[in-house]
């Protein structure tokens, strides 16, 4: 009984965690540069809807994916213009982006509701597929995005911590004054981080519509954007930790589905609460020590007057 459950949960964790991870990585980049995008949910939806629509029209999921990435980047660019150039309130702007994403995605997706598309192709290396406990499950039968999830996380980590650009981005997120004093252009760095982050967000949304469900429905992201925001905090703004967190949070969702299918008595809703409660607990645990791992620049916005 347990092995299929465990395998099912693992497989589901990876599948569900993929979009979560991409979204988290994108938001991590943004927050590392000192900007919180509460409208991540909107960005995900826009990516999902545009990806689906383009795929439905062109029949090519890769085009859809590219379109989704572009959409996400542009959306975050708009957000960046509001909060960086116009210096608007980040929380209000984020919520506005969320509503924008609701509306745009609904508009874009409406003509294509119910369309049947060819999603992103999945494949599994033969030698893995031959393993007995693997072949029966969906384990390791992934599309490109899932296969690339871990490498992309590594890439984001490498960008942030091993390149001059990443150092600058982190400096901006900690202290725009210091970044400026070192001869950098904080606004430019923030736009770059947002743009890249937005593309990852668009990709995250596309994974939902082009791979996981192969459908489009309004609000289909079902709060994933906010889970990702929680996950950024939970993983202490570290892309590598985000991988673990995405598996964990994705696993919670997968577990819930598996248990439901088996008629378990544990309420699925309790499980769904886990990501948020866990994050809150983690914050409480850190709260005792003054040192939050958050980029100091987030302080003014996200943390009010801390």
């Amino acid at each position: 009984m347990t092995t299929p459950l465990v395998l099912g949960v693992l497989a589901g964790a990876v599948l569900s965690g993929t979009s979560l991870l991409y979204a988290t990585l994108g938001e991590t980049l943004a927050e590392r540069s000192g900007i919180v995008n509460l409208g991540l949910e909107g960005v995900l939806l826009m990516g999902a809807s545009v990806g689906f629509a383009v795929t439905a029209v062109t029949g090519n999921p890769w085009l859809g994916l590219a379109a989704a990435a572009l959409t996400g980047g542009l959306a975050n660019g708009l957000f960046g213009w509001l909060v960086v150039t116009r210096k608007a309130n980040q929380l209000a702007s984020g919520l506005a982006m969320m509503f924008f994403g609701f509306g745009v995605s609904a508009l874009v997706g409406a003509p294509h509701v119910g369309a049947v598309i060819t999603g992103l192709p999945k494949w599994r290396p033969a030698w893995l597929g031959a393993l007995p406990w693997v072949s029966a499950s969906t384990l390791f039968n992934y599309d490109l995005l899932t296969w690339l999830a871990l490498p992309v996380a590594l890439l984001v980590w490498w960008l942030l911590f091993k390149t001059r650009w990443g150092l600058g981005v982190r400096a901006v997120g900690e202290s725009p004054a210091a970044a400026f004093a070192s001869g950098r252009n904080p606004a430019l760095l923030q736009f770059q981080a947002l743009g890249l982050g937005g593309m990852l967000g668009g990709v995250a949304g596309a994974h939902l519509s082009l791979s996981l469900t192969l459908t489009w429905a309004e609000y289909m992201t079902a709060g994933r954007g906010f889970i990702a925001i929680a996950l950024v905090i939970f993983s202490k703004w570290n892309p590598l930790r985000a991988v673990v967190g995405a598996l964990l949070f994705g696993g919670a969702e997968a577990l819930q589905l598996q248990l439901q299918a088996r008629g378990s008595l544990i309420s699925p809703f309790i499980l769904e609460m886990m990501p948020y409660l866990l994050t809150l607990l983690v914050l409480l645990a850190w709260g005792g020590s003054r040192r939050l791992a958050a980029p100091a620049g987030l302080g003014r916005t996200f943390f009010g007057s801390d």
Partner: protein
Amino acid sequence: MSELALRPFLRQALRHALVAVAALAMFAAILLVAGKDPLRAAADTCRSMTTVYGFSELLVRMTPLLLTAVAVALPSRLGLINVGGEGQLYMGAWLATAGALWFPAAPRWVLLPLVAAMGFLGGALWAAIPGVLRAMKLVNETIATLLLNYVAPLIVSYSIFGPWKAPGSSAYPESPAYPDAALLPAFFDTRVHGGLLLALAALLAYWILVDKTRWGLQMRAIGGNAEAAQRLGIPVAVFLVAGLALGGGMAGLAGMGEAMGVHGRLRQGLSPGFGFTGFLIAWLAGGRPLGILFMAFLFAIITAAGDTLQITQGLPFSVVNILLAMILFIVLARRPGGAR
């Protein structure tokens, strides 16, 4: 003297009008791109709103928005950022439901106030948690209220699917219908319910509290300069918790209103984003009561337009969110640093 006061008021009104026009123009452009006729849409919307029923629907939509906006505005006087209106709303509905289901036989004059009080209490307690965390400097209230937003609807769902499941509602589970005594009275033949009175009373109470009482003065002192306030002897920590709790209570009343006034039972999806919309209303209005009234009405119009568009133009309701967002973008882009 009144002329001098009128001119900045006129200028403000003009600015607001320009924002509205610009946003509408952009929205019309988007509709055109989507292949729809914006003029027809506008005509349909206006027509539907000028009927008695249409207007009453606006009031129905406005009711929860007034409350969730106060839920944000009140703590903001203390410098607190409450983005947890959604969660507080759900917990208000939840606790109010508990009250109604546990005392089904009570007479109306007992049950209705009780249910209202429990609605308030549910939201207040839910908001007090982040309040305490913030007062103890453990967790910032923005994150805490945000995270709790998603836990509350799950508690509601759990209850609806579990202990409070109405028999025969397996397809779309919901609680049993409330006893009549717990329902908010409706006005005339419309769906406008007593919750509107509660909401207006709450708005009035908010205005009086902040502008006219000494507690409001102390709240504004904390919001303006918490260190000075503390040095002058104001118990800042107490105010922080109380402020968030009061705000949460307002949102809780909104939840109670939706449950007891509109739906008649506890359901999932009680709030299509009322909490977040309330945040934006409060932000746009700068926390001012009249502004909240105006903005809530405006948002009600916009969402009503959404319904009309759905029916007459075949557009998904969600498209009005674009108009909403446009208005916000314009205001955000014009006011560097935010409204407050």
